């Protein structure tokens, strides 16, 4: 994956190249849907029903759209946790851990400010969440840079440590004694809960995700810092030769990546759960990995891909209810899409249609 980043153009001047980046993923998606249709047909279900219900459940009504966007919101942020370090050629898959630590830190911030005004509490929660998640992934980056520990393994293992910390704190020091059979922390307070975007029922996490994705895109493709990161991602020795501080790049990028996932965790507490408990470990961090890879690690492409996956998840319920398909069928579709998109990587630059204009 990593070697490709320098080839990614900033969606801009090279019209043919840009078209290639739209047509090939679209083809991969289309063929995945066809394959999934065949799969479903082999179970005796009508694939046309399948496509209709998928459309209806994901985008067919205003309610379905909100359902899709609600599910997409945390995925944009957790996908950035993988997509940002990927610019440096790092494969971080521990967004789930950063989300949990961010959620815990945010909860802690709210609980130590019991009588502060809600706006202050929310800002403190967001900062604590981002700091917590950021430091968590920075730990992986530091282990990689200073000790040569593989960041993929370390970030994954840190997820389990984060989960253990969550369970320990929620069932121990931070536990609300009234939460008898569902160990939870005290509530962050109804007044501090972040509401929905006006006119919708989608929480503000979606907007934060969009902003974070756009900022990440600008950072990576339109700043000197981002250029340095991509140089280091392309060839780390070359980057060192030209005098780039690779360690600093790694730590900062990892912090930003973790901060995005930490913010997702903060939103889960402040907009959804209202407290920290085991419900937070819902797998958004892991789904984010899928989103980042499908988006080919482009922070901007993360947005439509997250919405697509949100839509697939939203329609999954309808497939279960109308077609009597098991929940796992949605996983099959996600897997097929994943493989098709990765396989389609080999098609880039091979079709003369795109080449003529691109060069």
């Amino acid at each position: 994956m990593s070697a490709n980043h320098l080839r990614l153009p900033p969606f801009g001047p090279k019209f043919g190249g840009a078209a290639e980046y739209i047509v090939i993923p679209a083809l991969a998606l289309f063929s995945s849907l066809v394959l999934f249709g065949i799969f479903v047909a082999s179970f005796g279900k009508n694939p046309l029903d399948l496509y209709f219900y998928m459309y209806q459940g994901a985008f067919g009504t205003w309610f379905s759209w909100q359902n899709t966007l609600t599910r997409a919101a945390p995925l944009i942020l957790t996908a950035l946790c993988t997509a940002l370090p990927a610019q440096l050629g790092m494969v971080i898959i521990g967004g789930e851990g950063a989300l949990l630590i961010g959620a815990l830190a945010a909860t802690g911030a709210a609980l130590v400010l019991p009588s502060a005004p809600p706006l202050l509490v929310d800002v403190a929660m967001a900062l604590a969440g981002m700091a917590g998640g950021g430091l968590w992934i920075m730990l992986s980056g530091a282990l990689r840079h200073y000790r040569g520990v593989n960041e993929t393994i370390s970030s994954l293992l840190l997820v389990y440590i984060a989960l253990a910390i969550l369970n320990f704190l929620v069932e121990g020091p931070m536990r609300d004694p009234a939460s008898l059979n569902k160990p939870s922390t005290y509530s962050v307070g109804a007044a501090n809960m972040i509401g929905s975007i006006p006119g919708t029922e989608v929480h503000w996490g979606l907007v934060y995700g969009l902003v974070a994705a756009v900022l990440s895109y600008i950072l990576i493709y339109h700043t000197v810092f981002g250029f340095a990161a991509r140089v280091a991602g392309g060839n780390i020795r070359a980057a060192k030769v030209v005098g780039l501080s690779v360690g600093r790049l790694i730590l900062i990028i990892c912090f930003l990546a973790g901060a995005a996932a930490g913010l997702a965790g903060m939103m889960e507490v402040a907009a959804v759960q209202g407290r920290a408990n085991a419900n937070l470990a819902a797998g958004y961090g892991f789904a984010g990995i899928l989103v980042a890879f499908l988006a080919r690690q482009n922070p901007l492409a993360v947005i439509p891909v997250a919405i697509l996956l949100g839509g697939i998840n939203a329609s999954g319920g309808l497939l279960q209810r109308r077609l009597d398909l098991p929940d796992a069928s949605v996983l099959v579709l996600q897997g097929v899409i994943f493989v098709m998109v990765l396989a389609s990587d080999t098609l880039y630059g091979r079709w003369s249609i795109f080449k003529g204009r691109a060069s």
Partner: protein
Amino acid sequence: MTFDTISRRRLLQGTAALGLGAALPIGGARAAATTIGFIYVGSRDDYGYNQAHAAGAAALKKMAGIKVVEEEKVPETDAVEKTMESMINLDGATLLFPTSFGYYNPHVLKMAAKYPKLRFEHCGGLWTDKDPKNAGSYFGYIDEAQHVAGVIAGHMTKSGKLGFVAAKPIPQVLRNINAWTLGAKLANPKVTTQVIFTGDWSMPVKEAEATNSLIDQGVDVITCHVDGPKTVVENAARRGAMVTGYHVNQAVLAPKAYLTGAEWNWEVLYPRFVKMFTAGETIPNFYRGGLKEEIVKVSPYGAAVPEAARKQADGVKAKLTAGSYVIFKGPVTDNKGGIAIASGVSRGQTDPELEKMNYLVEGVVGATS
């Protein structure tokens, strides 16, 4: 049949259904057909918690004028809110059964406040009078069934060592461990129960490890309180140990090793609720019961269980069913030598103190933290 005609027809059907759902007033829709939504946190065929609820849903499907829609593996996040709304908006569901404990706060509460004309029935017994009136929460005193199963376990053990694979040291789980152990001690006062906590509700690998480690320590009868007992039951049977089941009847998984088990009886409760609902009566917001109310039941005894054990267990079951028997009756000592329930104190099923249980009774080997 071209793609065009089918998709257009489907589209029209779908649009019509949507329009219909929106146009019909909530009450009016009931007479024709009531749509009931079931939501499970795990898979419907887990031989455990979720399968027990799915069996209840299956009982509703046999009723006339009832349509059941189901969704499995819905996490305890805003995903369950959206699933409820999707069932309401796209399927026209008017009664919902979000069956996982963690769905209640805040998700069921939020949806109940948003859809005041619809009914939400949650499993867990969490409703208080501060909560919306159109929400309800029911639960069963399954420790009664565990107590009866414990009697059988006490009879069957040869080593005197019983094993319990448990998820978390929370009151509901501790109550099952204690009730099972107290039952076993009725049959054999010397038995001990070794308990292992796996830390979460669905940890198949740890459950298998715990089962093996218990058997290595000489345990010969095992039970569990996890979401899907399949792993524990199959592993125990493979290693030659006996089991008493939990949630549903697992006899098919281990016909010889399965002695009996504590089961939910949702296939009795759900039709009862739905009859109240369709008749326009109010389902009680807070609804709990045990063997007497037929909310829990004991699995039929396995072939290996001798007559004496059956007789004693049936005796306890009969008294529990009659309501003339108290499991947690003082004096009860905890396993640290302290007094859990003083002499002369009798804690009946509805005693709120039992909801806060934080000890393991004497004879249980293990710690709550």
